[in-house]
């Protein structure tokens, strides 16, 4: 079955041309914390495969799209290729024969950086599992809206963007205030960066307050205003109440944005709103921070000072803290101040989504379940138009100059991990689920993270031509692996500590390949075992109690003293 796919791939000319040496014998594979394996290396259109000649020994199946960069080295006639992956793993292949080595290296380089989305592996991958529930239909906006309708009648689902013309990065259906018509929305869209007019992101059931998100207003240097925009966001306010606008940029950055046509909501035109500026970095700054952090984690020197200096210099923890702090602020405005909130930065596709999705983790217990979290990622990242294809094109080992790359989604996952660590019983999923999402965002056999917005996904016919990650995850055997054994549904708002002392390096991700996880895995399994055994015993106790009760009623003698 596997081989039929390979043959199909191989027949595609684009791939065949790129593979000069499809197969080399006597290749030695070195991996961290695993014995070396000798075997045959095969290159296919999408995979690098190493199979040892002994049966049942481990093989390496690596997606080319997972490869971030390679380095080659020669010692005599044996060449070594060091493969650095987007999931932060580093492996080494020793290949006999200079020419073979060079051929393999150039093939990997070419195949790992294919630009055409439609040649990506998800279009060739056929599931070898039974799809119980098609993940492409699991989190449709109309279903989410039905839930909202049961709580409030102040919102409607607008189809104004059904052909992606009003806002190219929005989905066809968005929730907006009920008394704002589509024409008004069209006008507002021209006043917001990328057409991203304010839409509903979260409804807080407890007090009816809402969180909206948008792109920056295009006020420009002349202080342009848009009555419709003011009307739209004011429509979400209760009479006599004020709202908060959380701008993820510093006031300076927001001021500078005016010169390029952007801007912010001035007090004069939005008197009912209080603006708060925070400082969440984006783009290059984040990408460089990730590169520095991973470099520090791989540092082999034994100096504690050097490690702590490098960790500090990477600034990664500072980014985590800024994002979490801003998310807590948004959550506080909603839950404690009882005010509605609008979040935006520049485009509204990066830091805005980090804040709006984390605030929901804090506020909404539903988002802390496995399905709820999938829904959150689907709604607030995929449908909301985070440009995954650009942001996740390269990871921490890339040598090429970063363009649109930024680990915004990874930072979000890291923040969730920090909250999960602080509230170990409040999440239905475990750390593995977060690591899995990180891996699939960068390289995957599934179509979920392909493209950059709903329009891309429609154009590429992803739901028809590829399998959804959720289809695979939502099967009993996978769910079991991703379930947190300590989970006890907690209906409360959870306020994470953002003190620097409380924030930790996410070892499970950043040091995953630098340490042997054997002992920690064993401990985790043991804990799972304890909890399961406990449940079993509890069931036994309950059934014995029932039997006893039954016997007592059946046998009147037992009741007489």
């Amino acid at each position, binding site marked *: 079955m596997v081989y039929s796919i390979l043959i199909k791939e191989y027949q595609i000319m684009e791939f065949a041309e790129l593979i000069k040496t499809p197969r080399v014998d006597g290749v030695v594979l070195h991996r961290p914390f695993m014995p070396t394996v000798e075997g045959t290396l095969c290159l296919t259109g999408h995979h690098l495969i190493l199979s040892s000649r002994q049966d049942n020994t481990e093989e390496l199946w690596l997606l080319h799209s997972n490869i971030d960069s390679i380095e080659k080295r020669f010692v005599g006639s044996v060449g070594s290729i060091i493969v650095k992956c987007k999931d932060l793993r580093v492996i080494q292949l020793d290949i006999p024969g200079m020419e073979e080595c060079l051929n393999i290296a150039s093939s990997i380089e070419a195949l790992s950086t294919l630009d055409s989305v439609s040649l990506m592996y998800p279009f060739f991958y056929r599931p070898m599992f039974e799809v119980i529930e098609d993940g492409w239909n699991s989190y449709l906006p109309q279903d989410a809206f039905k839930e909202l309708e049961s709580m409030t009648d102040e919102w409607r689902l607008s189809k104004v963007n059904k052909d992606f013309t009003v806002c190219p990065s929005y989905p066809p259906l968005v929730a907006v205030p009920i008394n704002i018509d589509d024409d008004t929305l069209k006008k507002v869209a021209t006043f917001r960066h990328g057409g991203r007019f304010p839409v509903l992101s979260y409804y807080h059931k407890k007090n009816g307050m809402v969180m909206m998100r948008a792109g920056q207003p295009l006020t420009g240097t002349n202080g342009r205003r848009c009555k419709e925009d003011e009307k739209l966001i004011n429509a979400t306010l209760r009479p006599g109440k004020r709202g908060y606008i959380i701008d993820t940029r510093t006031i300076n950055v927001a001021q500078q944005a005016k010169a390029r046509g952007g801007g912010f909501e001035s007090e004069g035109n939005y008197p009912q709103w209080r603006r708060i500026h925070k400082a969440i970095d984006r783009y290059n700054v984040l990408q460089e921070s990730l590169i520095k952090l991973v470099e520090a*984690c791989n*540092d082999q*020197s*034994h*100096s*504690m*000072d*050097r*490690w*702590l*200096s490098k*960790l*500090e210099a990477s*600034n990664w*923890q*500072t980014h*985590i*803290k800024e994002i979490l702090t801003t998310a807590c602020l948004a959550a506080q405005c909603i839950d404690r101040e009882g005010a509605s909130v609008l979040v935006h930065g520049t485009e509204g596709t990066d830091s805005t989504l980090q804040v709006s999705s984390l605030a929901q983790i804090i506020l909404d217990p539903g988002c802390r379940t496995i399905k709820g979290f999938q829904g959150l990622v689907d709604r607030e990242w995929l449908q909301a138009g985070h440009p995954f294809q650009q942001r996740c094109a390269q990871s921490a080992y890339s040598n090429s100059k970063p363009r649109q790359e930024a680990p915004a989604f990874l930072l979000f996952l890291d923040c969730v991990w920090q909250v999960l660590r*602080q*509230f*170990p*019983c409040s999440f239905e999923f475990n750390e593995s689920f977060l690591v899995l999402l990180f891996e699939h965002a960068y390289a995957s056999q599934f179509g979920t993270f392909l493209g950059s917005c709903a329009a891309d996904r429609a154009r590429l016919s992803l739901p028809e031509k590829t399998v959804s990650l959720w289809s695979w995850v939502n099967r009993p055997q996978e769910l079991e692996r991703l379930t947190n054994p*300590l989970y006890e549904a907690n209906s409360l708002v959870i306020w994470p*500590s*953002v*003190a*620097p*002392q*409380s*924030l*930790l*390096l996410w070892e499970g991700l950043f*040091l995953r390949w*630098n*340490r042997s996880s054997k*002992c*920690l895995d*064993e*401990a985790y399994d*043991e*804990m799972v075992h*304890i*909890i399961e*055994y*406990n449940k079993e*015993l509890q069931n036994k*106790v309950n059934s014995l109690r029932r039997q006893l009760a039954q016997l007592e009623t059946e046998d009147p003698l037992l009741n007489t003293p």
Partner: protein
Amino acid sequence: MEFSDHIKTANVEDVVLRQPLHPPSRGTLCITGHHLLFSEREEGSSQQVLLLLRNIDAVEKRMSGSSGTITIKCKDLRVLQLDIPGMEQCLNISRSIETLSCLDNVSEMYPFFYRPTDLSLQDQWGLSTPEKHYTQMKELHERWRLSSVNKSYSVCPSYPPAVIVPNCIDDETLKKVAKFRQGGRFPVLCYYHRKNGMVIMRSSQPLTGANRKRCKEDELLLQAVIEDSDKGFIIDTRSSQQVHQARMTGGGFESKSFYNCWKRLHRQMERGKALQESLIKLVEACSDESHSVDRWLSKLENSKWLSHVQTALSTAGLLAECVERDGHSALVHGYEGTDCSLLICTLAQLIMDPFCRTLEGFLALLEREWVQAGHPFQQRCAHSAYSHARFQQESPVFLLLLDCVWQLWRQFPLALGFSEALLLRLANEVYASDYGTFLCNNDQERCALGVKDRTHCLFRALLRPAEIDYYSNPLYEPTELAIWPSVHPQSLQLWRGFFLRWTQLAHHLEEVQEEIRSMVIEWARVAQR
């Protein structure tokens, strides 16, 4: 001197107590000879806080109008605040606390007054004795003997009355060797590795001095340790520069020419003041409220605490490697042989010996290697990180040990039979305790004061059935293998459970551990039925 002379105001009503993780509460404050007692006086509540005065590291007072505020900083790193009405009362209270919290006279300390109903002074004090330990270690008897040369503490004041030495070395020789070693701490056996018969010895530095004095008996003793094997390792916890300097003050090292079968390895470990300052800086960093990540990481780095943890673990790893992997015996010493030497000998035993990793084995190890071996607890733990007093002999060596053990526990969650709760409890007890275990500086002092007859033993108390449940590791699965800790800087972490224990964060994690523990205890009960 009576305690009551120090207590001008014993009771104050209407005091407000603020403590971490609790809302402020109002109630009555009492000061007794050894305790500070706060009883809440609010309706429907009967919360009490009982604090050993010995636990108080520093007191600060602030007056405003007719009332005052006393901030109490404890050796367990907790910070409490008391709002006391009445200036005079406030001053009296703070003066009493200041005096009573640092009484010098050991026999007036609380362990001599503590009389719990479920323990009897007739019970055996301590888990074992050097004699019993030797009797149990049958495999030692062929080549090693128990010497009572120190039975009156005259040969080495800081050693116990009985020590294990090579069979062929008589007591006269030992007396001569003792004169050649600082404080009389001649080389004694501390660990026998069953797998290959190799041993760890510990001592203090040889007193070679500037003239390169030698001592034939010392050389003979060490030769007897390695017997026919080709070599042994001396792990000196000082740098080679330090050992050369030590000669100027009468100390020194084993020179190659006189000890040609021994290879010297130097690993510089900080002790004394440097370690104490490191702790102060770390605790200061942990309570920093500036909210800047950079600042926190700089301060953490600056404190050097994690570097000390790393050095201790890697030196212990080196020692274990000599014994377990290379199959050679080793001698460990630094200067006095009462701090770093004990630290790394203890860690090496945890790495190699599965029995030391059980709850009982670990406590027995601490008793042997710290209490009996003469770590000067009273001097080292007189004050902790908050004290304003000028430091003399204070140094958190034992706390550093507990931190290193915690790192082991974190890297090998199944391998240790005890829980983090035990390490936290020990970290408290060593600074302020109801029990006599950590009183005094050595066995001699303990005997002189009758500690073993007039106080209760902490280790025995910890092994009572009710306590065992609490201090056992629910995930424990014994392994015969050595556990080699990773000492990469990335693998070592701040012991948040201790250093940040009074913040909300540690609290949640404690709840989880509590949850798992109670499950395991519950099964045991079900299984018995």
